[in-house]
């Protein structure tokens, strides 16, 4: 069977009758554009998060009392170190600092910079960080959101923290964290652990929690058991739980959107059904003529199927390209707030392009199957036009 002639004729008809399809293409492009934008954002956020979380420690332990986290004694570190299979144990001070005048808060993280591992992590996070000058005075690294917020309040170089004792602690803003980490570090401040201890008013031998790694995944459950044997008042947070929580969060947002979008899809199908019933009814004469000169029902169905397939593919490609530009080149104005909204400080995120074959496939199925299904019955109705129609 030679399809060459058929394709030739198909292109002819499509080009001569583009007007008929423009409406359907337009609606489809809008539908696909919205759909892919949202899914691109959610999958990009997911992969950015995973990338950022990768460098974090596998476990975080802290002491609890009455179910609430309280300060953890530094002495716990030595006990933790004794468990086999654990590496890179580090103390951490981690908490929210409230900026009273505006009721905003920052996430304050104190890191032990004399610990080799922590300082290495920090240096890989902030390329070209000069540790010597950073440590020479009381200084801190701030997330972009914090930096913007502070400079709006005229803290250009220094910021004075208020300690629980009522004294002020002046800390130099050394540098901003790279914008690639905005997703979780937007409202974050990183400083040496002693400084954080002073600002939060913790005792000399107290930290908020202790972090460590367990290189062998299979040992994870064992380690948790051992920790609970060591301390009766301990809470253990695993990195994989955090990863999963974040993943679920963005999956939810994407999924909820899809469910809401189902309504739009049903409307879309109805519009298409109407539109194509109308378009095809104007073609009755034309199809009758083709039938009269020897085209079978099958041939007409084939013609309609290919016509629709071209419309579907063209709109899909257009919609996806537009969404790609919108999300990854223009950083999705408006829509990104749905995903990032609710955060403490205004956040600006540049999305890292992530294009998965599976995601594109999902978008395609979500759109193409309803489209083709909506057109199928009008197409059949026109294909069975009796050839006698040509004589009328």
């Amino acid at each position, binding site marked *: *069977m*030679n399809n*060459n*002639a*058929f394709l*030739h*004729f198909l292109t*002819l*008809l499509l080009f*001569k*009758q583009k007007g008929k399809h423009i409406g359907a293409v337009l609606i489809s492009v809008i539908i696909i554009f919205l759909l892919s934008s949202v899914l691109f954002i959610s999958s990009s956020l997911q992969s950015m998060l995973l990338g950022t979380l990768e460098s974090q420690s596998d476990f975080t332990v802290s002491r609890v009392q009455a179910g609430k986290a309280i300060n953890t004694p530094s002495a716990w570190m030595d006990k933790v170190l004794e468990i086999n299979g654990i590496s890179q144990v580090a103390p951490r001070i981690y908490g929210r600092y409230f900026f009273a005048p505006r009721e905003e808060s920052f996430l304050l993280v104190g890191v032990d910079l004399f610990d080799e591992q922590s300082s290495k992590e920090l240096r890989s996070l902030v390329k070209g960080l000069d540790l010597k000058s950073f440590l020479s005075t009381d200084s801190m690294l701030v997330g972009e959101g914090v930096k913007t917020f502070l400079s709006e309040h005229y803290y250009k170089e220094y910021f004075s923290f208020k300690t629980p004792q009522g004294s002020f602690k002046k800390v130099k803003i050394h540098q901003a964290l790279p914008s690639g980490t905005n997703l979780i570090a937007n409202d974050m401040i990183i400083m040496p652990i002693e400084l954080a201890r002073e600002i939060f008013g913790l005792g000399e031998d107290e930290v908020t929690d202790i972090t460590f790694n367990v290189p062998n995944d299979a040992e994870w459950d064992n380690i948790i058991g051992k920790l609970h044997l060591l301390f009766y008042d301990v809470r253990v947070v695993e990195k994989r739980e955090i990863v999963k929580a974040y993943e679920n969060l963005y999956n939810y947002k994407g999924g909820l959107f899809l469910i809401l979008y189902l309504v739009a899809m049903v409307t879309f199908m109805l519009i298409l059904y109407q539109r194509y019933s109308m378009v095809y009814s104007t073609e009755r*004469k*034309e199809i009758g*003529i*083709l*039938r*009269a*000169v*020897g*085209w*079978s*029902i*099958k*041939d007409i169905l084939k013609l309609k199927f290919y016509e629709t397939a071209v419309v579907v593919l063209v709109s899909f490609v257009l919609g996806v390209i537009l969404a790609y530009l919108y999300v990854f080149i223009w950083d999705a104005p408006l829509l990104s707030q749905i995903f990032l909204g609710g955060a403490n400080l205004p956040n600006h995120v540049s999305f890292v392009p992530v294009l998965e074959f599976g995601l594109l496939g999902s978008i395609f199925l979500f759109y193409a199957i309803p489209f083709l299904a909506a057109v199928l019955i009008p197409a059949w109705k026109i294909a069975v036009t*009796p*050839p*006698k129609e*040509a*004589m009328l």
Partner: protein
Amino acid sequence: MISVENVSKIFNEGTPQAFEALKSIDLELAKGETMILMGVSGSGKSTLLSLIAALDKPSSGKIVVEGELISKLPDLHASAYRAKSIGFIFQHFNLLEALSVEENVIAPLINSGLDIKTIKEMAAESMQNAAISHKASQQVKELSGGEKQRCAIARALVHEPKLIICDEPTANLDRENSLKFIEILQSLHQRGKTIIVATHDPLFEALTFVDKVVHMEDGNIVGADSISAHN
């Protein structure tokens, strides 16, 4: 070649608007013969043509063309029969207005399995024969009546059908173009084609190359003259 036996066609069967367009028609036509169906409009000529060309199906009776029973063919076969054996020239030309002359002429061959090059060669030859080559790439809607007629002829003959069926071919033509059309018919007759023309144009009444003239009235055949003496 063609035998029509006891064929009736009732439209809107079983409803109050039922209308019997053909009443037990019998008709025979041998290969290579030319037949004129005369009668006023509404006499059933067009309906009979549509049944012979398998554009429609009879309500009862048998139509056999070249040994094949075409009154009861499934769509795939009916279409193949139309595509292979029938060249139909319609009263209103029935061209695809959005396309050019050449594109109209290739339409019957699209599903033939031939490649586009061969199809275009066949179309060129057919347009040559119908004297419309010079307008090949012109849009159909810009053509005059006579040119449309020639385009329709080129399309009807592009696949070299054995049976040529014309429904009121000169109804929309002036006298000059009608005479030209009759010349073309004559040359087709000389090439051995079987031809059926339904018309009420008096120009067709005294043609020398016609083998049969059949008069129809109210869905019945009221008279048939065989004019075989001329051949």
